[in-house]
């Protein structure tokens, strides 16, 4: 059995590392390229959402590298993601890439049942080693998120364009190769140091833009056409609302420890969207409100074309934008999106933010 899994930016690397450490043969999904996208778009139904298309491309490329099994999460709706595995399996089989699917069903807020599902895959590893691999992966994920946040802050003020991204990439790769808790901790602080040491320019207050939207789209740079890096190069500090660490804490660990789940995002969204709509719809609205309250300069909302929960969010976010006076740019992306168009829109958006800020300053 050679396992692969859907790629979500760098965030799935700890999962790969964990499975390897558990003794499984893992085929890491290659970084998506135009080829990945073309394969995915060719095999997929026309109006399916973009993540499914890129996933399919990922699987085919992993298949070519020898993978025969896909490990992924399931779902119970109403977002289409819950039906991904069923349909992807059929499509792959028809196209001549027969693959087995191992679907980890959403454990109704229970990390233990998820772990026991995983445990069944790797019975020849001692429980001790199994748990250690989980611990390393968990720590790695936290380290990566921390470095990611820092990199976004540094990129906005870097003296040499592109340096931050280069250092970031290097550090993530180093972290990925770590296999013990101690080495992760050591690499974590070294990565922070490397980012601090990047030469910076002095600037008056850096504009802050919050990135919200569908979870896959904001985590996979290939899918969102490097929106974080583009904004960073324009001197904007991007705050990505994606946090898998938070997500796992809230949805998987909270119930095990009988902790109180944080519902504050839902509460923020309530006046505008009072019911959950699947996916990250409510979170997108709540994050917009929160960004406004925390005086961010703008919000960039990224979603795949035809995404149902995000369409609901997109329909009500203008109300938030009007009431709080916060600019929101919605980017709807799929395999047809091109870099030039996105670049132009982002530049215009950043101009708008700068002008708005100057107008406010002149009034004072």
């Amino acid at each position, binding site marked *: 059995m050679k396992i692969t899994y859907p790629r979500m930016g760098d965030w799935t690397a700890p999962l790969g590392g964990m499975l390897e450490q558990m003794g499984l043969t893992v085929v890491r999904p290659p970084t998506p390229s135009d080829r990945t996208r073309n394969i995915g778009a060719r095999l997929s*139904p*026309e*109006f*399916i*959402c973009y993540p499914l298309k890129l996933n399919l491309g990922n699987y085919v490329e992993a298949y070519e590298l020898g993978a025969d099994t896909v490990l992924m999460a399931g779902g*119970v*709706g*109403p*977002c*289409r993601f*819950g*039906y991904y595995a*069923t*349909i992807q399996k*059929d*499509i792959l089989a*028809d196209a001549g890439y027969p693959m087995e699917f191992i679907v980890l069903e959403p454990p109704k807020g229970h990390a233990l049942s998820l772990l026991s599902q995983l445990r069944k895959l790797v019975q020849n590893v001692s429980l001790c080693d199994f748990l250690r691999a989980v611990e390393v992966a968990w720590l790695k994920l936290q380290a990566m998120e921390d470095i990611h946040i820092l990199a976004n802050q540094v990129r906005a003020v870097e003296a040499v364009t592109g340096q931050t991204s280069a250092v970031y990439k290097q550090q993530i790769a180093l972290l990925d190769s770590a296999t013990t808790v101690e080495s992760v901790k050591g690499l974590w602080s070294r990565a922070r140091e490397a980012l601090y040491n990047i030469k910076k320019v002095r600037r008056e207050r850096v504009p802050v833009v919050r990135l919200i939207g569908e979870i896959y789209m904001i985590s996979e740079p290939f899918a969102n056409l490097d929106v974080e890096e583009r904004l960073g190069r324009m001197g904007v500090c991007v705050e990505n609302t994606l946090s898998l660490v938070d997500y796992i804490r809230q949805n998987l660990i909270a119930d095990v420890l009988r902790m109180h789940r944080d519902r504050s995002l839902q509460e923020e969204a309530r006046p*505008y*969207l*009072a*019911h*959950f*709509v*699947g*996916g990250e*719809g409510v979170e997108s609205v709540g994050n917009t409100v929160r960004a406004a309250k925390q005086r961010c300069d703008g919000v960039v909302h990224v979603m795949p*074309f*035809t*995404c*149902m*929960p995000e*369409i*609901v*969010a*997109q*329909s*009500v976010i*203008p*109300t938030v934008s009007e009431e709080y006076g916060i600019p929101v740019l919605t980017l*709807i992306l799929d395999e047809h999106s091109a870099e030039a168009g996105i670049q132009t829109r982002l530049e215009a958006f950043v101009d708008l933010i700068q002008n708005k800020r100057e107008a406010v300053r002149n009034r004072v």
Partner: protein
Amino acid sequence: MVSVGLPRALFHHEFGELFQTFFQCAGATVEVSPHTTREILDLGVSSAVDETCLPVKIYYGHARWLSQRVDSVFVPRVVSICPREYTCPKFLGLPDMIRRALRGSAVCSPLVDVRRRGGSLSDALVLAARELGLDERIAKKAVRSACMKQKTSSLAIREVPKGQGPAVAVLGHQYLISDALSGMDVKRRLQALGLTVYDYHMVPEPALVRIQRRVNRPAFWTYENKILAAAIWYMNQRKVDGIIQWVSFGCGPDSMVGEVVSRECRQRGVPHMLLTIDEHTGTAGVQTRLEAFADMVFWRREV
């Protein structure tokens, strides 16, 4: 007397009789918006975000048309009408979307969610009556008579057509096919070409349930499950010579289940056509494709 507006779109095609009878019996003045016209559609298109699907845009149009004429527009939040299933994410957020479009007009949006206690359709209606300030006791009685009326009207659409010639099943959301604009009278058009036309209402309910259980992993959307099960049933029973799927552009659930249906059709060698409808679709293009499909069905019979 309080006046209630019922948009003739989405759920109205399924529960219209129920809603109308209920509010009338409960003592409200009821206004149902007219059949969809180009003007209503334009109202909707101008207030909805581009990415929403045609039926939701039509719903926006009806709601806006009504908002000028009634005290409150009835926009139920239909989360689930079958245990363990959903309708569509957009319906879950529909009242919030409509509220944004109507800006200030009153919207009455009780929750219909059979996954929860007290979330049935009749509970929701009583809740709506309370919200509108209607007498609750009368409302409870009104629910009963409304349910009776609903039953007789749903029997009518289940009636199976009798015909000898080739038959096709037109599968799609009822709110898309029954609408005056987005349905384009597809059934009548096919009948005029000499075909017997079936839809998913004509499949006996127990058969649908049985097939749904057999599908290896049923989807979690009520209507799509029905469409898939109906397609399989019609092919198993050898009742149809072809299947036409009528979907709206950008429909999320249909994008997946449509794929499954076409796969099933291909495996069994049954012709399948997917027609995608949006606000730009002209009837001439649809007519041509229907004619071509009908020709093919007749030729295949002759061979």
